[in-house]
């Protein structure tokens, strides 16, 4: 089964020269896009990749990465609601068909239930004050 995951790879200073992306594509048949990368020789760094391929290959690919002394953690994209920016108007609830963003009928306060969220991202633009965002760091 083809799956898609986001991973964050942490490189130690000594490992910055390893051609990880190349190996993942060539040896494990994984498609990748690099979402973010800041790796410097001598100080290490982090790269965030979107990887897709057969589930088995994804597992083997991650095993390979870890065998090269690179820490790999799987990220899930998540919607983040910032209570400080929120004015509790409810505009986001108009587009949240999964009812992850809800107004309490009694207190009129907005709340966000992460488990209901399918990360459709409709709320991001519907929010007039920029109180909802997507965080790829989970």
């Amino acid at each position, binding site marked *: 089964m083809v799956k898609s995951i986001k991973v964050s790879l942490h490189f130690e200073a000594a490992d910055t020269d390893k051609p990880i992306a190349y190996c993942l594509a060539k040896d494990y048949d994984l498609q990748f896009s690099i979402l973010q990368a800041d790796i410097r020789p001598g100080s290490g760094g982090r790269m965030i990749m979107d990887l897709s391929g057969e589930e088995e290959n994804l597992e083997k690919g991650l095993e390979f990465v870890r065998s090269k002394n690179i820490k790999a953690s799987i990220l899930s994209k998540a919607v983040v609601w910032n209570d400080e920016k929120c004015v509790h*108007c409810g505009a986001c609830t108009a587009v949240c068909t999964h009812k992850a963003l809800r107004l309490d009928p009694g207190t009129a306060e907005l709340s966000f239930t992460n488990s209901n969220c399918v990360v459709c991202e409709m709320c991001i633009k519907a929010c*007039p004050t920029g109180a909802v965002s997507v965080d790829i760091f989970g």
Partner: protein
Amino acid sequence: MKTIEEINDKIRSGSAVVMTAEEVAAMTKERGVKETAKRVDVVTTGTFSPMCSSGAFLNFGHSEPPIRMNRVLLNDVPAYAGVAAVDCYIGATEASLSRGMEYGGAHVIEDLVAGKAIKLSAHSYGTDCYPRKEIETTVSLKDMNQCFMFNPRNAYQNYSCATNTSSTIIRTYMGTLLPRCANATYATSGELSPLLKDPELRTVGIGTRVFFGGAQGYVAWAGTQCFPGVSENKDGSKMYSGATLAIIGDLKQMNANFIRAAVMDGYGISLYVGIGIPFPVLDEDLLRQLAVPNSELFTDVYDYSVPSRSRPVLRRVSYAELRSGEIELGGRKVPAAPLSSLRKAREIAELLKLQVREGSFLLTEAVAKLPSEPVKHVLEERMV
């Protein structure tokens, strides 16, 4: 029968009974109009909604050598400088030259109220008395002269509920409307909404003191497009709509809690303005209006997919139905979402209640009735 002066005397002596419109609706239901009118002196209201027709006059003071500014940018947002040398008007909906809809006049106003410094960049053609041709500096509220918000149209008495019967998503000033009536939005705080509680404007007029973005502001005039009207429902109940207020108040006294920038996706920039009006309970008639609950306040549902100045009305709904989170539309339950914050409206009504109780907010007798413009004009296209 009480007069405003008698009520103010009670406020000064600390004996006035002040309640929010929600509390007085509940009390009236329980104890009746007569008893409630006797017991309660002041009823407070509140609303916190995007109000596009907003902006502020700023006076920067003079630089050395001085400049007669004829082009002004505030954080790259153009302000109107066609007034005197260092005066300008920053309109809420003006978009940034570099960031477009993401940042605009409303954000400049919010940032100023929050105490932040704003980049001012101004140009001039230079005159004998104002030789300077450009200036770049930063300004913040505390180091400017008079800064007052002057909003030509705020506090809409009532507003339509919006839905979309078309097959595509539309982005409007009423928020994102999903295809085939998959949602509906509305923007009034219902039984807390100031002008719905004194629908015939018996006590609101020019000079009325109001809670305005955290400061004490004043009704300056009838708002633009102020067309108060009433229509009767089948059961004899009434739907009021159409009144608006032009409001003026000191920007320096405002609080970022009650002035917030808004971006309506695909439409543009607006400004959330927090407004509250305390109403004197002059007699039983007025109390009866002040106590009207959401179930007896109505608005019409319009089809916003028709881009015309007269959109079709789909039905009339009560604010109680809207507040339930779902309205019935064409035999289906449609999710209804507000654009104005009920939580903030309550916060304003509660804060105003405290201010009136402690005597820091006295009621006012209007200086004059709001001028009415009974004929509603439309813009005709003529040969030029």
